[in-house]
């Protein structure tokens, strides 16, 4: 590639200016990312300058096989999968439904779109606090709604399973807008003439959706499924804000944070179990990788079948 700027010596300018960005990236993101697997074989703590010993597979053995802790870990792993499944399927379904409706020529569609998309800017803390108020158990709005049906609930402070379910609801509330936007941008690439042709052939609305919209929406379907699955396997901010580290509700991401940064053993950095947390991160990473690759494979095959 031709380079136009100045003499031979100044040929180095682009390299020089590129360096800070690369340096920061390797130092802060890429390097640590790779180092996670190294730390997972050590007994590192959060104590500055402390000696770090190589302990082989001990962290993994402890995580997977050691008594009650291992049971708790598998329970958290199970909850992570449950969370991922419900968040992905419901958010996908609702996002698609709303996108298809908004894509029609309806009055006020931009207002609705903006409204559903709005929570993305608020962040987990504000999202969580807004919903904590909405779910205030002593006569709060949701409690009043339940009263109409003669029911009552502690919501976030109630049974772990119920609190967990509410986090799923709030997670979907917060992120459905993103799914909707990606579907909408996909829908807009489908030309009006495609719909016209189908209608001239006398297709019903459902047939138009099944035979025109759905197959042509494949790229957005793939993007949304991949983003939602990977995102929800790793998401735990709302658990932190809404529930805290509560037994029976933790997902893997939160568990890693808790053991690595002393939520389970006190807040002195020397009690941080960072090697163990690194091993747990690798296990979560492998889970995301296996599920991600599996889903990707299925989606690719489906795409080939549809697109020919």
């Amino acid at each position, binding site marked *: 590639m031709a380079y136009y700027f100045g003499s031979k010596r100044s040929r180095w300018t682009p390299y020089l200016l590129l360096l800070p960005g690369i340096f920061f990236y390797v130092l802060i993101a890429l390097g640590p990312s790779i180092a996670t697997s190294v*730390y997972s074989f050590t007994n590192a703590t959060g104590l500055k300058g402390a000696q770090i010993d190589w302990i082989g597979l001990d962290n993994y053995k402890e995580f997977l096989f050691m008594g009650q802790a291992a049971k708790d870990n598998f329970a958290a792993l199970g909850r992570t999968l449950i969370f991922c499944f419900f968040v992905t399927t419901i958010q996908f379904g609702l996002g698609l439904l709303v996108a298809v409706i908004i894509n029609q020529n309806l009055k006020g569609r931009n207002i609705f779109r903006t409204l559903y998309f709005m929570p993305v800017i608020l962040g987990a803390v504000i999202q969580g606090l807004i919903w904590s108020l909405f779910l205030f158990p002593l006569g709060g709005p949701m409690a009043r709604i339940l009263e109409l049906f003669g029911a009552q609930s502690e919501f976030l402070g109630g049974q772990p399973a119920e609190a967990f379910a509410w986090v799923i609801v709030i997670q979907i509330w917060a992120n459905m807008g993103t799914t909707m936007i990606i579907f909408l941008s996909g829908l807009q690439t489908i030309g009006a003439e495609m719909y016209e042709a189908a209608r001239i052939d006398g297709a019903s609305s459902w047939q138009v959706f099944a035979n025109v919209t759905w197959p042509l929406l494949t790229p957005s379907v793939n993007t949304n499924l991949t983003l939602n699955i990977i995102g929800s396997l790793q998401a735990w901010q709302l658990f932190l804000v809404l529930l805290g580290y509560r037994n029976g509700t933790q997902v893997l991401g939160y568990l890693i944070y808790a053991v690595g940064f002393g939520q389970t053993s006190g807040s002195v950095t020397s009690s941080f179990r960072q090697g163990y947390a690194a091993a747990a991160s690798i296990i979560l990473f492998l889970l995301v990788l296996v599920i991600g690759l599996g889903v990707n494979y299925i989606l690719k095959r489906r795409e080939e079948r549809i697109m020919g």
Partner: protein
Amino acid sequence: MSTMTKSVRNKKPVNWGRIGSYLILIIFAIIYLGPLLVLVNTSLKTMPSFMKDATGLARELHFQNFVEAWTKANFPKYLFNSLIYTVSATTIYIITAVFVSFPIARNYVKFSGPLLTLFVIALFLPPALIPQFQLILNLGLYNNPIGYIMLFIVNPIGIVILVNYIKSVPKELDEAAALDGCGYFRFVWSIVIPLIKPAIATVVVLHAIGIWNEIIAPTIYLTSEKYYPITRGLIVFQGVYGSNWPNLAAAVLMLTLPMLILFLFLQRYIISGLTSGSVKG
């Protein structure tokens, strides 16, 4: 759901598809607006009236809540911290990112392709959480604003967005500018940057929102209250005054409203970031 778009002009039949569509949109609108309206309502109630009836309409318009929330917590300090973190990290990031993206997009450095791959690869690697902490700790930057800012001066997705956008800027421009004696730095700084403003805006908005809303990193890295950003400050406020919902609601509302107004202006940048960032496949 039988006739979705076309209505016959003469007969004007009831368009059930359209009615159903609006019905669904309105139900969702209530789900999205409801919690916000409850927040507004609660922020205007007195504590006794909240205790008596948490949901009932606020009749007393107790604006005092906002004053109390503002003075009880150190919100100006938290807001100032958040602003410093967000602005400084985003500024450093975007400047370094432009100088990484431009030569890669133009092939002005050797190994441009592998370099770009190097950035994309981070999206498929294990989380950096633990070693990152060890790094900051051993640099002596734990519980230090500089260490905290450092965490946010990288973002590989932004690089991908910038590279893609720069590729749409015609190369003839480089040649013409160089012929006029324009140097590399000046060209990127005063010609390329203005030309790729839309992409820069998108990346800046996405990156800044991420920092502003971050809650995990401040919980891990900042232990002194004087360094807390607004997210952590809100959690502290909730911990102390959490039982006083009218006060807490006022605090949350004061921080939510500016974000919502900002959202109306920034929405298109967020959308373009989402749709361009997600094509990565």
